[in-house]
């Protein structure tokens, strides 16, 4: 092997070692700093959530009713437009509080009741809940 080649190899290895030492001891954060960094990222931040999802308290889906009228109640964002529809009836109301309650008629058999909530006037996509309620009295 030529003398120049050996020199170049040794010089290259030395240079690599120097770069590695600089990275390890000068540029890498110390153990303490790393622990502090980890601690700081673990601190949870409380984000205020203004989204009120549509929830139906009653009736439950697939409920069987003895009467031809039921009470629909639930929660939705205050001030939202609530539209309740079935093949035989429809109601529109503005939610004055966080909760709503209304009386709704049933037809004999299966009643598909769709509740749509438009939370604000900038969104044409509503929150939707669909219920099937059965009124199966013989008389």
């Amino acid at each position, binding site marked *: 092997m030529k003398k120049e080649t050996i020199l170049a190899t040794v010089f290259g290895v030395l240079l690599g070692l120097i770069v590695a030492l600089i990275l390890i001891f000068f540029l890498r954060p110390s153990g303490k700093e790393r622990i502090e960094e980890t601690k700081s990222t673990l601190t949870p931040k409380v984000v205020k959530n203004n989204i009120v999802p549509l929830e139906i308290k009653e009736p439950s889906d*697939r*409920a*069987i009713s003895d009467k031809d009228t039921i009470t629909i109640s639930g929660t939705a964002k205050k001030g939202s*437009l609530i*539209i309740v*529809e*079935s*093949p035989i009836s*429809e*109601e*529109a*109301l*503005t939610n004055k509080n966080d909760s709503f309650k209304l009386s709704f008629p049933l*037809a*004999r*058999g*299966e009643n*598909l009741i*769709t509740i*749509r909530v*438009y939370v604000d*006037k*900038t*969104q*044409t*996509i*509503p929150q*939707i809940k*669909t219920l*099937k309620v*059965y009124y*199966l*009295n*013989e*008389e």
Partner: protein
Amino acid sequence: MKLKYILIYIFVFILLSSGIVIGQSTNSELEEIQNFKEKLASKVAELQKKEDKAISGFLILKKDKTLTIETTDNEQFSVELDDLLTKYFQVNVTALKEITLDDFEVDDYIIITGPISGKVITANNVYKDENFTSGSGIVSDTGQGDFVLNVVTLENETLTIDIETATKRKILNIKTLKLEDVGFSKIKTGDVLHFIYKKISNKDEKKYSATKILVIPQEYFSK
């Protein structure tokens, strides 16, 4: 001799009185049993009612004493029928009409009540009804005077909604927020449309005849 008569008298008296006592206790026991039976029957009926759930879907298979239904969410349930206990009805607006198992055909929309265990329902009652489905979207085209609305749904599907003479039409009055009747000509491209239609099988189509529509004018959203 006197003693003999006295003894016979005492024996007959004891026999008769014990008979009365036995008879009385039997009657009261029977009454108690009857009451217990009635209470038990009412409790069973009450529990059965509590346990009864309803499920509905399209009839996809009818075989001997078992029906298979597919719900609108594409779940399949097996319906077990009993010759003596299961009753069959047709749902009419005014009342339920009793029918037989022979009146049911594939693609009928049926409601079953009874205890449900996993994917098996033990049917107490089976009802033949109609399926209604609802949807909503934005009107993309009001047709060329042929009473047809093209709607882009929330699932980004384009459906054609036929507006028939019998279709109930409602619109939201954006000032009063009350629902009012509306003519077809008032519906515009960009309005939000809620629609309800009858499905005759569990297959999805691209065109439906609306039973009912409800319009929310686009002006409500741009206010």
